[in-house]
């Protein structure tokens, strides 16, 4: 099965600022794919490039089987796109927005749009300028969903939505994925994304740090914490061969985020005389995000970060 989106080695520079550096992503069909990254990581640049709003300096892109540069109309006809700040016409009413957009899609678009605005409880005769930010987002979502696209690209789609609508929208993304449609979204709402995302990619400083199914990633990464009787002694040798993503020291307690730990790592650590209170927990998405974003960073603080799931080993 071909991937919904194929990104191979794309780079983009704006002036002297390199926003994307050799980014490669393969997004399978029928999944909810979440692109995570800090502000300025390059998420919006990547998404705009996927839609053909600018050319990448290098690399190749295929979106729903179309080349964004050579086949922009076909791409936009088959892909639903919602930007982070949809620029709707202030003087149009909600209904007029749908009528205007319906001119460029097939029959049935307007009907579907009107159904969506009913579902979202949007007043059809109200001007866009009189709507709140969240309601505008709903209008933009309705416009994108009304064409029933096979691929949805959403840039911060839930920004401005209240928690209830945000949750219901994201859960509807699951239903779309189940129906075979692909959802590609970028977001900062870790807790909500964690509930719906099948795959995640973390973008940091223009480079992809990790691309993997969320569950696999959670299984593959553990947070190991332990306390030291004598902090001056060296770290256990068992940790030397591990892929430590992040290390945090808080007094006598050390917390390590390790990817792909060996099976007997915990047993080895438990045999170390200098260590006690050894615990292993599965990280949350937020912790994964922080870990991959700050990979290699050694943090020293007095406050111990909490974990959602822990297992005490010793």
């Amino acid at each position, binding site marked *: 099965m071909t991937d919904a989106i194929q990104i191979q080695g794309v780079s983009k520079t704006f002036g002297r600022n390199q926003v994307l550096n050799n980014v490669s992503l393969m997004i399978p069909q029928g999944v909810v794919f979440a692109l995570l990254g800090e502000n300025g990581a390059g998420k919006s640049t990547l998404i705009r490039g996927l839609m053909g709003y600018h050319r990448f300096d290098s690399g190749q892109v295929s979106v729903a089987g179309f080349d964004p540069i050579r086949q922009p109309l076909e791409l936009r006809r088959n892909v639903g796109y919602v930007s982070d700040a949809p*620029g709707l016409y202030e003087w149009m009413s909600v209904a007029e927005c749908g009528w205007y957009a319906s001119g460029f899609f097939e029959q049935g678009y307007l009907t579907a749009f009107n159904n969506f605005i009913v579902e979202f409880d949007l007043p059809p005769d109200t001007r866009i300028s009189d709507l709140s930010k969240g309601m505008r987002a709903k209008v933009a979502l309705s416009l994108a969903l009304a064409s029933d696209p096979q691929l949805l690209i959403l840039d911060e789609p839930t920004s401005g939505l209240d928690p209830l609508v945000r949750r*219901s929208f994201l859960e509807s993304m699951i239903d779309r994925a189940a129906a075979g449609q692909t959802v590609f979204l970028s977001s900062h709402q870790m807790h909500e994304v964690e509930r719906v995302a099948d795959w995640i990619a973390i973008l940091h400083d223009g480079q992809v740090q990790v691309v993997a199914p969320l569950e696999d990633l959670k299984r593959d990464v553990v947070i190991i914490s332990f306390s030291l009787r004598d902090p001056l002694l060296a770290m256990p040798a068992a940790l030397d061969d591990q892929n430590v993503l992040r290390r945090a020291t808080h007094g006598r307690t050390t917390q390590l985020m390790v990817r792909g730990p060996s099976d007997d790592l915990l047993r080895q650590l438990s045999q170390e005389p200098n260590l006690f209170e050894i615990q292993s927990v599965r990280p949350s998405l937020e912790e994964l995000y922080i870990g991959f974003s700050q990979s290699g960073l050694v943090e020293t603080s007095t406050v111990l970060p909490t974990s959602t799931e822990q297992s005490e080993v010793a």
Partner: protein
Amino acid sequence: MQTLVQSGTQLKSAMPLQSTQQFLSATPWQALLWKDYRQVRPALAAILIGMLGCQLLLLMSAFLIDSAGLREANAGMIMVIALVSPILVVLACCGMLIGHERQSGTWHWSSGLPIGWQKSLTSKLLVCLGSSLLALGLLLIVPLFSWQLFGGQGVEKWVFDTYGSTISLMLFLNVLTYFLLSTLLFRETLNALLIAMLWMLGTNLVILNMPLGIFENGYQLNQKLNQQAILWSAGSMGVLWLVGLVALVVAYRWRWSTGQFSTLRRGRSAVRTIPRPLHIWDQLQPSEFRMLWHQSWRNSIAKRAGLVGLAVLMVALLVSNPSLLLVASVIPLTLCGLTTFEGDQVNHRFRFLADRGVSPRQLIRARLLAGGSTALVIATIVALGSMWSMELPSGLPVMLVPLAVLSFLVGMLCALCFRKPIVAGTVAVVACLATVIIYASALSYRIYVYESNPHWLFVYALLVLGLVGPIVLYLAVRRFTKIWLIQDQLRLESRCFGLLMFVALGPLFLSAALGFLAVPNPRWQGLPLAAQAEANIQGPDLNRTRQILPAWEPAITVHEIQYIFNFDSEHFYERASKALDAITDDDGFAPSSSDLSTALETLDSRVTIEQPTRYYDDLSTMIVESTALGIIACRRQETELAVSMLKLSRNLQQIALELNPPQTVNARNLACEMLLTLTIDQLHDLSELSELESVLVLDVPDESYPWTQQAKGQATWDRAALRGDPLPQSRFGKHFWRYDWLTRNIPPLRWRQERQIARTLDASLKFIAGGQPLPARTSPHFVADYLAHQSLLARLSTLKVKVGAATSTPERSADVIVPEQELLTPAPSTEPADARDLPPNRQAGKADEDQSPSDDER
């Protein structure tokens, strides 16, 4: 809350069929054209309303202005407004369809839909062109109406001359292309329009002046075009347009797709943490004003530099036409005012100031300092440029001061009240142009109506006109800034419109009110005729103001007054018939040439050999007789005889003038009317045309006095107009001055008609009774008008102007005493009466009665 559990596909399949039929989708072209039209509609409406309002005001003022020349100028301005409106519409369309869309983000969203760039561009071009044509069509209605009323150059000729020429067409296409291109390349809408303006002015300056160095005859804006120069200019502009069109297509395609977020700058500039000028001030305690001033200065600095450049180019292009330069300078000055608050409205940036509790006064001071200094530079450039021209009236730079202040403040107010910069710019420019036109109309109306009867109020009203507007606007800016900072969502647009209308129309009403107060009519009452003629109505000296405004002439002549009252020459014919009867034989044959010669010799001998009769009636009869003979001679193409007869008539009139000026005027009027029976062709056929026309014109100190020629030409025109012949030249006001039911029932029209007639009478009486030499700038109309002032007296009786009892003076044989009762009585019966049997005062009254048409005829 219900969760979304069904995808769109499932929903569609679940929908009953009749529900889907309720929603009719748009076609691509429907959607695009509708959207683009709705996008430009507010700006288009602002332009149409503003320009139409100006046209209607100019039309209204044309009804009130006395001077035919000014009415023609008004008609010309009405037409110019219509013809330049397409350019304004194109500017607004470019700003709204591309600039504003890019700034607001709708461009990005719209391009995310499956819309091809070709369709998008075509739709925008169609809407631009359609809106331009719509504006042109709607704004041509008033010129058509004014042309019907006032005559003048036909509308179709104007339109054809303007748009039919290749250069004009190329200019329009270039404006459309390059303004669209500029809004594609530059993100800030006003910056883009400004750059495009600079480009257009610069290239046109080069193209239109290039032939000067290439072709022998050269090309000059005010002279007849050289054919080669036209070809060169049109060809150059055509090439420029083609290049622009290709660039537009390429740029549009790029911006619609992969160039959405690209900028023309090579790299992002580093953010300065502390701007360099502040390094000096780092040593000082920072103050709110200093920070605001710095922010005001840095904000829109590129725009202000561009506006200064625009002013320089305007001066270069319009240096030979200082009046037009003055009006055009409104644009950079208004845009300069616009830059004061323009940057704050984008993305609600003003909230940064509002959230920090910035003092509105400090803010206004800082903004005025930054923007006002630039406006001062622009005004100085315009003033220097206008003074460069050799044809400058000296008062023009003085008028620039209130104009500059007004334009700047209008721009400032609009930037404050309108969130969208392009709408603010459109409203500001249109409002300023409208205000300038209205002020000019009000000014000219006041000056020209009351040149001879000025009132001190309206002299100082000139200063008031220039001060009221700016003061009101400044106070409004202060008030609105406070509201704007404190109350975020308060809509100020409607208040702005109200203020602009007040500033534009207020002086007009103020001027009209002051004019009403200054009506000199009551001065006529109770004065004898001679005293009226000698009445010296004081007034302020308007010489300086006259220097500012071009020379004027009264719009109305006695012939037009006669036309107003449907005056015909029947009574003249009656008396002429009697005279002819006296010299025809019993069988009714007209005298032969020999008989005419004999009659001429007889009359001549009576005048030159015998003592001239002391009885006015004798003279009157002889004048009539000689004129009648002259007409007969004219019809027989006996030129020499005709001239001799008419010379005799003139001599008799001169004698009669010494005896009794008013009556002689009456007699001269009879002679004039008889000559009016001749057609233009008949007069032109006569070789001694100048001699004939001199009968209508008084002796002047110097025959070569320039306006004597004008008087003769004017007399020729008047005859043609009265007879309905094709006019030798276009003339404003041909069929306008009617004292019909409309004029009688609309007080302002009636009032001004009466004033005009009273003024004409005043001038006529002064001239006759005073025996003054003709004033240096007296209109040639007065010369012809005075001849029939008796008619005016008769007409004045219907206008309730009374003439009282006279006192005789030794220099005059008799003052005309027209009893009030006789003047107020209707026209007498048609039965002739021997005037000689009547006493002198009754003879005068009888002469008037003979001339006045009966009620039936009226």
